[in-house]
């Protein structure tokens, strides 16, 4: 059956081409870096703008101006609900495993004040692990291998930051800087690989 192209492989390949432009990595990386810097200088009012609006607007705008003219416009089939269910199950299993085997045994036998603090920190861990699980699930289901690297980096930085009492802003800025550098490298490579096509590219049929 090698002679008949497989639509699933083609879909994955096209999806990977779309995300090889590094725009998402670059924007998210710069956003995290900005968040770390603004947090360091206590410029909190700017943070909501940087986090909520900048990535959404800039990714869309850059894709439209840079990616579409080079690789063409494509509308992918929406992710099926079963895929999302799988992603959430993977995230859930990961969360239960970490909470159940690592964190919960720590609570048992502690005095009530310590217990409250631990429960509070477990809530923060839960959200973090859920996000990490989702990142891993998306990486696995969409074959976006570099997301594994980000997941590992987040896990290592968060654990090291917690154990070594490093401020949140420092390791978020570090993760952001790494993602931004990866994004810039991918972006330059993408521009070289896919030069803008000249002339009228529309189908004249």
């Amino acid at each position, binding site marked *: *059956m090698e*002679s*008949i*192209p*497989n*639509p*699933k492989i*083609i*879909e994955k*390949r*096209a999806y990977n*081409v779309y995300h090889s432009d590094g725009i998402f990595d670059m924007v998210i990386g710069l956003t995290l870096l900005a968040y770390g810097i603004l947090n360091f200088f206590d410029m909190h009012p700017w943070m909501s703008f940087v986090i909520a609006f900048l990535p959404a607007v800039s990714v869309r705008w850059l894709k439209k101006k840079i990616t*579409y*003219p*080079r*690789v*063409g*416009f*494509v*509308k*992918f*089939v*929406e992710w099926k609900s079963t895929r999302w269910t799988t992603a959430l199950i993977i995230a859930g299993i990961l969360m239960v495993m970490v909470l159940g085997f690592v964190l919960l045994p720590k609570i048992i036998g502690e005095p009530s004040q310590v217990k409250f603090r631990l429960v509070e920190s477990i809530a923060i861990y839960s959200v973090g692990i859920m996000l990490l699980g989702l990142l891993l699930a998306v990486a696995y289901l969409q074959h976006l291998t570099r997301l594994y690297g980000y997941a590992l980096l987040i896990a290592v930085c968060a654990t090291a930051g917690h154990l070594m009492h490093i401020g949140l802003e420092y390791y978020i800025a570090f993760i952001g800087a790494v993602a931004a550098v990866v994004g810039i490298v991918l972006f330059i490579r993408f521009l070289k690989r*896919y030069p803008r*096509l000249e002339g*009228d*590219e*529309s*189908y*004249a*049929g």
Partner: protein
Amino acid sequence: MRDKAVSLPNQARLYTLDRIIHEPARLLIVTHLAAVESADFVFLLRQTGLTKGNLSAHLRTLEAAGYIEVKKEFVERIPRTLLRLSATGREALKEYRRQMKQIIHQ
């Protein structure tokens, strides 16, 4: 050599294959469109590696057969041709894949 030869019933099946889809370039186009909801001309140009003229000619054939739907629009005054596999085209590709599987496996 005898084992590798296509058996007589399969030879007959080969003649019943859809000639519009059986052509390699068109098969590539149709499979790409089957993998996505819709795509434009540039996307197919990049993904298939065909020349503009070649791609246009094959798209005309597919459009005439009713296998693809073509929608022309302007995005910020730039023309864009959106292409989508029609229900007929999707069914034809499905049938082609089924026939090819039978021919290869029997």
